């Protein structure tokens, strides 16, 4: 009987340990969110979005140039990654089973695991070194490469969720395969695909490492694609490691903006995927 008691005790201990594991992981999350929120709110104001950075010693100023820079960089990345990613996803879902499909799927997962700093080194080699010039284009290239596998795999997964009857209906009406895919199947999965793209955008908008030596940084406002350009993340990094209190405050404000973007995108994705799951359950 004592053995039974011991086993029950061990079991409760284990259940308790698992619950503690959850708390252990949520404590840092709470701490990070608390500090970003409390310090960020103190530093965030309208000037942050509309003003340019000021030199050391002058307090105030903002990150207008960096915000525009991040928008340009993620826009360039999307311009490159959405066609490649979505079309690759279509290929993966339409032609499963072939050898080439397995290779592409493996390549996508591999690319997804390549450290972002390595992708930055690659973009430097192909888009900075030959022109002897840091540029927004090089930064966009690095971010685009990071987005492609995410979009491809999300698209593939969502296209596979579309009920087979839809495809059969289109094909029975005499549609070609391309027509069935692009006028029936892709539109049916579109909300999910767009969610995937938004999530991928949110992820690369928070990237710093691949931008350090591709788009570099710029103290001035620019929309010139062949010039170095500022981004919120690189600017936060510059400010975070600076010794000036005013700059550090700006870094927290930038972090708050980044976390807010990520939070809203994740929430949107949650809502959208639960809708897709509903569709599947029906």
């Amino acid at each position, binding site marked *: 009987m004592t053995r039974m008691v011991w086993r029950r005790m061990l079991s409760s201990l284990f259940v308790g340990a698992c619950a503690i594991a959850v708390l252990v992981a949520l404590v840092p999350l709470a701490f990070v969110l608390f500090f970003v929120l409390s310090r960020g709110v103190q530093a965030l104001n309208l000037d942050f979005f509309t003003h340019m950075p000021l030199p050391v010693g002058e307090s105030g100023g903002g990150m207008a140039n960096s915000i525009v820079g991040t928008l340009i960089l993620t826009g360039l990345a999307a311009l490159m990654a959405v066609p490649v990613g979505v*079309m690759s996803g279509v290929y993966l879902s339409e032609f499963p089973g072939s050898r080439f499909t397995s290779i592409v799927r493996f390549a996508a997962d591999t690319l997804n695991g*390549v450290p972002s700093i390595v992708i930055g080194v690659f973009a430097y080699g192909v888009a900075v070194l030959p022109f002897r010039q840091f540029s927004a284009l090089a930064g966009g290239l690095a971010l685009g490469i990071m987005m492609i596998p995410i979009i491809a795999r999300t698209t593939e997964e969502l296209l596979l969720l579309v009920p087979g009857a839809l495809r059969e209906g289109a094909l029975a009406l005499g549609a070609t395969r391309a027509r069935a895919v692009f006028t029936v199947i892709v539109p049916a999965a579109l909300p999910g695909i767009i969610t995937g793209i938004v999530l991928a955008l949110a992820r690369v908008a*928070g990237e710093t490492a691949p931008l350090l030596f591709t788009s570099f940084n710029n103290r001035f406002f620019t929309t010139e694609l062949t010039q170095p350009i500022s981004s919120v993340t690189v600017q936060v*990094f510059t400010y975070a490691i600076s010794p000036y209190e005013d700059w550090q405050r700006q870094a927290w404000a930038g972090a708050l903006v980044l976390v807010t973007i990520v939070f809203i995108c994740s929430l949107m994705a949650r809502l959208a995927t639960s809708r897709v799951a509903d569709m599947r359950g029906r």
Partner: protein
Amino acid sequence: MRSRDIGFRLSTGAFAFVLASIVVAIGFELSRQSMLSIQKFGFDFWRTSTWDPVAGQFGALPFIWGTLYSSILALLIATPVAIGIAVFISELCPRILRTPLVFLTELLAAIPSIVYGLWGIFVLVPAVRSLEIALPDSLRALPLFSGPPLGVGMLSAALILAVMVVPFTSTVAREVLRTVPLAQREAAYALGATQFEAIRAAIFYARTGIVGAVMLGFGRALGETMAVTMVIGNNPQVSASLFAPQYTMAAVIANEFTEAADELYLAALVEIGLVLFIITLVVNGLSRGLIWTMAGRKSGRAAA
């Protein structure tokens, strides 16, 4: 297949080809750019620890040491926590808690590295410093805790990496646990197993996939850049001490790439990137293989 459909296959296939060729292009470009350093130093690059750009001497041992040490420490901390979370969410928690908990772990994964780094500099490092100061002198004599209590160093880096790795490992471990057949658990309960014993059997059943999940976390930790760069202290030395400021492969690239004035210096940094690329390729490949064998293709996707 109709001829019109062949056009469709070829055109979408062309985009898929672009995707696949990017991976090859990365390997090719990094090899090309690092050729100078590979030819000059050969294997000594990874065995020596003098990193002196002025003298043109490059030995990358401290960086590979720092990367492996910090990642392994992070795994030691993160793995039990991640498996605990996976078990709690998939086996134990009330239904109503499941969705919020999944959302929170996703959020943990989605917070940008730079934000963790900022938090690391201003919150974690001071906390670690006071912890290091509070450590009794008898323990300070151990090589594991030698050196001045700076706050920045291996311990801070491992802690922040652990926080960042937990959501990746736990998400995949959760997916893998979900593939364990229900009958397997029912059988365990029918034999009179306690909750712990039934779950232990499920974990044992899913062991291949769980090892895959841990390796996936390892791959993430190896390549993590910003947060580590900001707290590890960036000092190239091979030290076992948790208090010592050290350096990682990703961090040295981030810090020195724009300063690399001559070709050899740049090639040496690119070579570090090439090796990081190869290591993560192998680790991720192994991890995907394990997860796929365990759970079939679909759950491999969950890792993305």
